[in-house]
C-alpha cells in the first residue's frame, strides 16, 4: 500500500499515552511505522486512576501480557465490584458487583423472580444471588472459569493497580517493541496553513518533531485536540456536578479488600482503593459546595493509617470533546473528556479509544468517513457512561444536604428518563447496542439506589410460590458453598501475583 502513513507521534506519557504506545507497537510490528512518544517529567501525570473494570483484562490479553507479571509489577489487587456507602443516607450500603444475579428461568430474567419473592413470606436480598458480591464481602477470591455450567463462570473481575507503575510497565513493553521515547515539553503545535492538519510539534528545546498521525494524550490540557485544533467541549457539569478532587495515598492497615469503596460525603464522595502495598484515597467534590481546604479536612479525617504522599488537588469539568478525532489528531484519555471516576470507566474508555483507532486506522488520506464513524462510536460510549453515572446521583437518598438535594431534583437526559421509566414500570432493563454496562450492572444500581419496579414479569407466575422459594434457596446455598471453597483474597494474591516476588520485568 503506497499511501501508508509513516510516523505516529503520541504526546503524553500518562496511562493513556503508554497504553496507546503499547497497543500500537503490538499491532504495527512490521517496521513500516515509526511510533514516537513525547512526555515531560517536569509536567508529570495526573497521578490517579487506579480502579478498573473487567474490560482491562481483554486489553492486556490482546497485548499478550501475562496477568501474573502485570499484577506483580503494578502491585495490583483483584476487584469484584464497587461498594457504595451512604448513597441512600445513613449507613445503607450496596454493591455493584461484576457478575450476574442468579440465573434466568423459563426465559424470564432472574430479578423478576426475586421481585416476586419480595411479596412472599420469605424475604431475600438481591445480593445473596451474586457470587461476586458474596466473594467480595467475605474477602475471598478465586479466578473464575469459562465453563458455563460452573457457578464460577458467573462473575468477572478487574484490578486495583498503581497507575504510575502500570505506565512504567507498558513503557517497557512499548520500548521493547521499538517505540521511541522523547523527554521534552511540547511548546508549539504547528499546523499546515492550508489543510489545518498538524504538521509537527516543537519542543521547548526547539526540536521539531514531525508526524503523520498525532495522538493527543496530554491530559486535561488537550494540547493538540483543543488548544491547537479547537474542537470544542460539551460541558456536563449540570448532570455531573463534581469538578474537583483531592487524592492521597496511605499505608495499608489490613488485608486488601477485593472491591473499591465509594463513600458518600456532603459535597461528593470518597474513594478507597486497596493495592497490595498501600491504599489510594480521594475525595471527589463540587467546588460550589465546599472549598479545597474543607475537602482536604474531610478526606484527612477519613483516611485511616499513615499518609504516604502530600495531598494532590485536581480540577476538572465533566464532559467530552465535541470531536474525539479531528483531522490527523486523535485524542485519547483525559484529553478526550472526563466523566468523573465513580464507576472507574476512564481507563476503559482509553482502551476503547485505542482499539477503535486500530480498527479505523487511517492512511495518509484520512478519509472523513472513517473519522466520522470513529467519532460517532466514541461519543456514544461517553454518552452511555454518562447516563449510568447520573443515575447514582439522581436516585440518591441523602435528604436535606444541599448538594444531594440538587442532584435529586436535576433534569436528567431523556435517554435515562426512558430507561428509568421502563424499569420502574415493569422491571424491564432496556437493551442498547455496544454498551459498557449491561443488564446486571444497571440492575445493581437500580436496586441499590432503591428504584423499585411497580410490577414484576407476569410469567414468573408460571412457577408456583413454594417451588420458587425452593429454587431461590437452592441458588443461595450453591453460592454459599462456592464461597466456602474459595481462598481469601490475600491468599490468592500471595499464590498468584504477589508484588513481593516482583520479577525483573
Amino acid at each position, binding site marked *: 500500500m503506497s*499511501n501508508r502513513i509513516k510516523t505516529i507521534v503520541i504526546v503524553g506519557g500518562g496511562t493513556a499515552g503508554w497504553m496507546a504506545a503499547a497497543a500500537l507497537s503490538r499491532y504495527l510490528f512490521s517496521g513500516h511505522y515509526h511510533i514516537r512518544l513525547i512526555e515531560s517529567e517536569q509536567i508529570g501525570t495526573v497521578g490517579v486512576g487506579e480502579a478498573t473494570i473487567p474490560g482491562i483484562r481483554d486489553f492486556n490479553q490482546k497485548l499478550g501480557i501475562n496477568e501474573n507479571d502485570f499484577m506483580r509489577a503494578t502491585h495490583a489487587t483483584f476487584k469484584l465490584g464497587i461498594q457504595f456507602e451512604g448513597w441512600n443516607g445513613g449507613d445503607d450500603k450496596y454493591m455493584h458487583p461484576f457478575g450476574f444475579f442468579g440465573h434466568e428461568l423459563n426465559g424470564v430474567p432472574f430479578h423478576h423472580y426475586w*421481585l416476586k419473592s419480595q411479596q412472599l413470606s420469605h424475604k431475600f436480598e438481591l445480593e445473596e444471588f451474586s457470587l461476586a458480591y458474596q466473594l467480595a464481602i467475605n474477602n475471598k477470591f478465586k479466578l473464575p472459569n469459562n465453563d458455563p455450567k460452573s457457578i464460577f463462570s458467573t462473575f468477572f473481575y478487574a484490578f486495583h493497580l498503581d497507575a504510575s507503575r502500570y505506565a512504567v510497565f507498558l513503557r517497557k513493553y512499548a520500548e521493547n517493541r521499538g517505540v521511541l521515547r522523547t523527554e521534552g515539553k511540547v511548546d508549539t503545535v504547528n499546523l499546515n496553513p492550508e489543510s489545518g492538519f498538524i504538521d509537527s510539534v516543537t519542543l521547548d528545546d526547539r526540536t521539531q518533531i514531525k508526524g503523520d498521525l498525532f495522538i493527543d494524550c496530554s491530559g486535561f490540557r488537550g494540547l493538540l485536540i483543543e488548544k491547537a485544533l479547537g474542537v470544542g467541549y460539551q460541558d456536563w457539569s449540570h448532570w455531573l456536578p463534581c469538578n474537583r478532587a483531592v487524592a492521597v495515598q496511605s499505608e495499608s492497615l489490613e488485608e486488601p479488600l477485593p472491591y473499591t469503596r465509594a463513600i458518600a460525603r456532603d459535597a461528593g464522595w470518597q474513594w478507597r482503593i486497596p493495592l497490595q502495598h498501600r491504599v489510594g484515597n480521594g475525595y471527589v467534590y463540587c467546588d460550589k459546595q465546599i472549598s479545597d481546604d474543607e475537602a482536604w479536612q474531610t478526606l484527612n479525617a477519613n483516611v485511616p493509617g499513615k499518609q504516604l504522599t502530600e495531598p494532590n488537588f485536581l480540577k476538572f469539568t465533566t464532559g467530552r470533546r465535541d470531536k474525539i478525532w479531528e483531522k490527523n489528531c486523535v485524542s485519547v484519555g483525559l484529553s478526550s473528556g472526563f466523566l468523573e471516576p465513580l464507576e472507574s470507566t476512564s481507563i476503559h474508555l482509553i482502551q476503547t479509544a485505542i482499539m477503535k483507532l486500530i480498527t479505523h486506522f487511517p*492512511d495518509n488520506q484520512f478519509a472523513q468517513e472513517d473519522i466520522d464513524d470513529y467519532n460517532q462510536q466514541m461519543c456514544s460510549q461517553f454518552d452511555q457512561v454518562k447516563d449510568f453515572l447520573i443515575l447514582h446521583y439522581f436516585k440518591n437518598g441523602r435528604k436535606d444536604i444541599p448538594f444531594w438535594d440538587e442532584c435529586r431534583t436535576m433534569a436528567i437526559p431523556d435517554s435515562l428518563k426512558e430507561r428509568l421509566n421502563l424499569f420502574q414500570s415493569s422491571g424491564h432493563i432496556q437493551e442498547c447496542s455496544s454498551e459498557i454496562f449491561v443488564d446486571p450492572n444497571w440492575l445493581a444500581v437500580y436496586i441499590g439506589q432503591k428504584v423499585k419496579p411497580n410490577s414484576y414479569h*407476569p410469567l414468573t407466575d*408460571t412457577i408456583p410460590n413454594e417451588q420458587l422459594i425452593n429454587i431461590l434457596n437452592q441458588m443461595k446455598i450453591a453460592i454459599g458453598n462456592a464461597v466456602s471453597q474459595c481462598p481469601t483474597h490475600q491468599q490468592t494474591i500471595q499464590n498468584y501475583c504477589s508484588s513481593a516476588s516482583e520479577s525483573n520485568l
Partner: protein
Amino acid sequence: MITSNKLYRLIVLGNTLEAWLAAAYIKRKMNHLVEITIVDNGQSNPIAQYINLGSTTHLFHKILGLTQNDMINFCEGKIHFGQSYYSIGDKSKSFFIPYSSSGFEKGFFHFHQLLSRINENFKNYNESYSINFALEKNNKVPSQSYRGPIPDYSFVVNSSRYHEKIKSIALSMGVQYIQSTNYQLKTDANGTINELTVDEEKIKNISHVINTLVNFDSQPNKKSSKASYRTVEIVNQESDYSDIALQWSLDEESIIKKQKLMGKQFIKGYHPIYLSMQQIEAIYSADNKTIAIIEDVISDTIEWSANKLNISLSNLETPPLVVCELEHFAASLADFIRLFTVEKNNTVNAKEFNRLVNQRQKSIDDLHHLILYQASSKLTPSTGVSSKIKKMIELYKTHGRFSLSPIEPVKAHYYFSVLIGNHLLPKSYHPLLDELDANQIKAEVKGLQNQIEIALQFTNNKGDLIPKR
C-alpha cells in the same frame, strides 16, 4: 407493587397464519396464565403459497414444538442456505446472500479485506468461499458424517400446510376458536378494549387484543383512513421466493401503463409487501417467470397502544427483497412476551415495544433499499436510501469497513453480499493488513476452499434432515 397471579384473557382477531402463530407462541410461553380466544371474521388472508421461515426462527419453532421432520414432511419444507438474487437487466449483477457469512474474519479484518490484501478477485466471494453457496448450488444438505459447524439454514414451507400445523398445535394447547362475523368489541372511555361480544356471548376483562387483520381498526372489515394498502398480484403461485429476480422500470410511460392495467386487473391476493419505490413493477423467478406484480404497498406499522396490539405479518412491513417477515414477526412476539405487563394501559412498555420493532424494521428496510439502490444503476442515490446506509456505504468504499452495532438484526455479511455482488468494491483495504504475511493469508484462504470441497463430500440430497449439533 402490583402482583399478578391472575388469568389473562387475550383476544386474537383473524383466522390468519399470524393469528395462530401468535396464539400458539403466547400460550406456550404463558401456559395456564392465559386464556386465548381467536375470533375469525371470515376474512381470509392468502399469502404466497410458499413462505420462507428465515434462518433465525429455529428457537421460535422449537418453542412451538415444530420439529425438522414436521417442517420437511408435513409442511413440505425445503431447506435453503441463502437467497439468490438475479438481476435481469445486468446479469453480472446477480448475487447470493448466504445465511452464514462467507470466509473467515481475522481479528478486526473482514474476509473481503483479506482477499483484497492478497490481490484475490473477490467479486464472487460468496460463490467461492461460502459453504452455504456450495450446498445451495449443489442441492445438498450436510449429512450425519459432516464435520464442522452446521451452516445457517432456513425452511421454505408450503404456507397452508404450515398454517394447518400451527393451528393444530394451538388448538391442542387449548386455544379457543370462534368463527363468527357477528362480533363486537366494546371500548371504555379511554378507548381501551375491555369486552368482546360474539353472537351475544360476552368475554369480559380482556387484557390484550391482538389484531392480525390487515385492517387496522378494531372493527373488522372497516378500512381505516390511516392505512394505505398496496397489494401484489401473485401470478405464479408455484414459486417459492427462494430465487428472486428484479426488474426496474423508471420510465414514466410504463409506470402509467402499468397503473392503468393494474387498476383493471382482478387482484387474487395480497402479499405482505412494503415498497417505498414506485420503480419496481414485478418480482420474477430466476427463470424469468413473473411471481408477482406489485400494485400497492401496505404502509402502516406494527403498533402496541393501550391494550390493543396490531400485530400481523401484513403489518410488519417486511420488504419482499429481504425475505424475513416471519423472522421479524417471531422477534416481535418475543418482544411482546418480554414486555408483557400486568398493568392495563401501560404505555411505557408499549412504547418500548414499538421502539424495538421499529428499530428492527429500519434495519430491514435499509438492506432492502440497498439492494434496490445497488441493483439499478438508474436510480438516484437519494431514493429511499437512509442517511445511515449512505454513510455506511461511503465508509465501506474507502477501506472496506462497515460498522454495525452488534444488536442489528441484519448482519454485515448481508450488506457485503449486496455491495460486492453489485461490483461495488472498496478503493483499498485496511492499512494495517500490510502488517500480516500475505502468504499466510493465501494459505488460509486455500485451506478454506479445501475444507468446503471436503465438506461437500459429506452431504445428502436436499430433503433429508440436517444433523443436530
